[in-house]
């Protein structure tokens, strides 16, 4: 687990789990804002470079601001360009509202939970 923090900062945790040779589950915990979004961007880019399916589990997200939405949006576009699958699991009310209120939801593919996200692979 990597823990992004400083002496005075909000906190985001990123965890990655491998599932077979070509799938990764990225679990995002905490607050995704201008401070922590760059770390998420670098992390997702790295996973998309090595895995065919990347599941991003947002269930533990407490804040998702425009910096974080932008990172997810770009990762999704990168996945499309590189013939990868990016799938969101998003039962966090806050993350859901962020995607809905900004009308970004339609751009993403979703699964109800992580097992579904992995078995649904096309």
């Amino acid at each position, binding site marked *: 687990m990597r823990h992004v923090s*400083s002496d*005075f*900062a*909000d906190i985001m945790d990123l965890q990655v789990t491998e599932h077979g040779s070509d799938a990764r589950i990225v679990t995002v915990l905490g*607050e995704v*804002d*201008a*401070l922590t979004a760059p770390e998420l961007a670098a992390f997702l880019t790295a996973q998309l470079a090595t895995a065919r399916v990347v599941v991003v589990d947002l269930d533990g997200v407490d*804040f*998702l*601001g*425009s*910096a974080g*939405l*932008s990172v997810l*949006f770009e990762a999704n576009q990168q996945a499309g360009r590189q013939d990868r699958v990016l799938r969101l699991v998003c039962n966090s*009310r*806050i993350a859901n*509202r*962020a995607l*809905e*209120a*900004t*009308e970004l939801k339609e751009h993403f593919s979703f699964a109800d939970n992580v097992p579904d996200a992995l078995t649904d692979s096309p």
Partner: protein
Amino acid sequence: MSLELRTTASALVIPTIRSVAADLAARADFDLDSIDDLRMAVDDVCAMLVRIAARDATLSCSFIVRADRIELAAEIDADASAGPLPTKSFGWRVLESLADDVSVAYLPGVHGEGGRVCITLAKGAVAVPQT
């Protein structure tokens, strides 16, 4: 009810400012979606202003809590190298989808040549259903 927050212009204080916004909205009986939207909008505004801040600038956020809405005026002394705010950016679009009546004003600079940049917005207590 009015509340002004004056802070060091740093991304490190934004979490506290957005918490204040959410706290005000919750205590003013905003619905959950509107509280979330205001928190995100305030985060976005502060991040945009901190990015263009002059050295040692102070970020000022003035909230007014009215019966059915909260208004924010956020201001900063901009760095001389900062251009106008990118109102076609991803972040600005997000802001416009979250808040009502977003506007930006450029005022003559009090300190330095960057001028003073002010973003105002309002947010109603009840979320409009998404179409």
